[in-house]
């Protein structure tokens, strides 16, 4: 995943480097800052609960960085390993649906035939108040 993301942004080797180092520069320190971790946690709701997890992330980034040794000048980025496959086109017919009962069984709370959600997004608590993320 990381490898693919690297290739995606790559227009030129230099351009990519400049873009990446604005967030964290593993070349220089190999460390991912607490600020970046918090930002990632908010965006993806992934819990980097421990220093171990952060260290693992840094190792993964360093591993992917080895791709930079490859000269990709003039090479079209790979967007999908499916790029040689044909995108199947489905006919415009109604063949599914009508299973509200089954779907609603999955819901924690239901009102008539609606799923129930909180009134808005619940913000992740700030770093100092952080606890393991849990649904209410």
């Amino acid at each position: 995943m990381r490898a693919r993301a690297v290739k995606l942004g790559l227009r030129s080797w230099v351009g990519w480097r400049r873009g990446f180092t604005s967030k964290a520069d593993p070349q220089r320190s190999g460390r991912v800052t607490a600020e970046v971790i918090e930002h990632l946690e908010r965006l993806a709701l992934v819990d980097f609960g421990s220093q171990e997890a952060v260290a693992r992330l840094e190792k993964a980034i360093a591993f992917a960085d080895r791709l930079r040794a490859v000269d990709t000048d003039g090479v079209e980025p790979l967007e999908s390993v499916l790029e040689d496959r044909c995108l199947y086109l489905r006919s415009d017919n109604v063949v599914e649906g009508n299973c509200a009962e089954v779907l609603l069984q999955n819901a924690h709370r239901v009102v008539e035939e609606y799923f129930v959600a909180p009134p808005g997004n619940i913000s992740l608590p700030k770093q100092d108040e952080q606890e393991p993320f849990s649904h209410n």
Partner: protein
Amino acid sequence: MAAPVKRWSCVGKRWVLAYIDGGSRHGRGAAIGFTSRRKRGQSSVAQQPLITAQKSRKGEHEWEAVVGLEIHAQISSNSKLFSGSQVHFAAPPNSLVSFFDASLPGTLPVLNRRCVEAAVMTGLALNCRINKKSLFDRKHYFYADLPAGYQITQQRLPIAVNGSLAYSVCVGKKPSQVSTKTVRIKQIQLEQDSGKSLHDEPRSQTLIDLNRAGVGLLEVVLEPDMSCGEEAASAVRELQLILQALGTSQANMAEGQLRVDANISVHHPGEPLGVRTEVKNLNSARFLAKAIDFEIERQIHELENGRKILNETRSFDYKLGCTMPMRDKEGKQDYRFMPEPNLPPLLLHDTASLPPGADPQQVINIDWIRERLPELPSETREKLIQQYGMLPEHSFALLNEVGLLEFFQNVIKETRAEPKKVTSWVLNIFLGFLKQQNLTVNESPVTPSALAELLNLLDRKAISSSAAKQVMDVKRGNPRAINKLMGLVRKATLSRADPTVIKKILERKLSS
């Protein structure tokens, strides 16, 4: 008559502070010395003898407003963009939802051919370049009505780019003073719609209905070539007519099939563009222009008073008639775009590049679609003008009402009367009658044949124009008119016809 009020007003492409009749934008001031300005090769705007400007006021500034639009049109298809559940407006909650729409693990997107065709047709109609290869991406954000946590869209390489949309605006008080403008189309992309949230404030909860989740949308991005609410509204209206003519979307704003977001900023002429705000929830044709103009005026007001404009998202409050910052939109969103890993690139062909022996169901030929494009509103109007010697503004009016053009053409078929007469009757008397009774053309008690016959009588001079109008009066439910009509018929038949027979014939004709 209210006292004159100082308001920011749009004159041509400029926003100036001027005295206008209180409450109305277009007062009855004398012509003023504003010269028309050419901007970016667009047709020049005639002098606007609409408002009296207070030129001597110290510190009076001129502002230019820049308006761009993102329009989402629901594709008219039987099933959704990536799944086989039905697309339908009113249905029991969560009854039109497949496992994929509910984002259950293990489900995969399968692209609907009809949606691709709709996108190609729309791109061609809007003079776009159709990308033979386009890609799908994931746009991530959290919201309860987006079960997957991402929307499948086309951010990197959309299906159509670099088009244009021509529309007309009134440039003077007279309806004949119209000017054609063009707005560039940045791109058209295919994307998924989200489900619907019903906010239940008292119980502090939101009810989610996923019937709409996964419905195919065409996002049409208009470049910021527009300068006020009226231009934006006209462009949207023309796009609506095009989509309806193509059949790619019913584009009914009331049913949520057409939704508009506006990006608005202001700046002094010659200076760089200002900070823009995004105004969402513009879902009513009536309020579109109002909301945009309000936001322009708000921004000018803020800047004139030394404050700054925040790059934020606002929504339009219809009841209060103003834009408000939206909650839940804190800071700039990071959508973490990534390629949709489950969909290979979408490849389209033209006649020259058709792979031999390919399954026709699996191949889309742009040339084939182009050859079968229906007639666009601009072509229809041009034909009306050429065929019937109609004025341009009449051709616009005929296309502006659902079913009116067909009605007009049916009357023309059955009547001997001159087209100009028919046009005048349909647009003034017939349409006026419908508006008064609050009816659509399809609900009209007057059929095209009836009107054609009436016009024939008029043409033969069997009845006078006022008598014909009175027939309409009778339809309006005015019984005294029947007697007047009887008198006229008796005169016309030189009193030889039997009055009871006349009455019977009239009643029969009028009730048909």
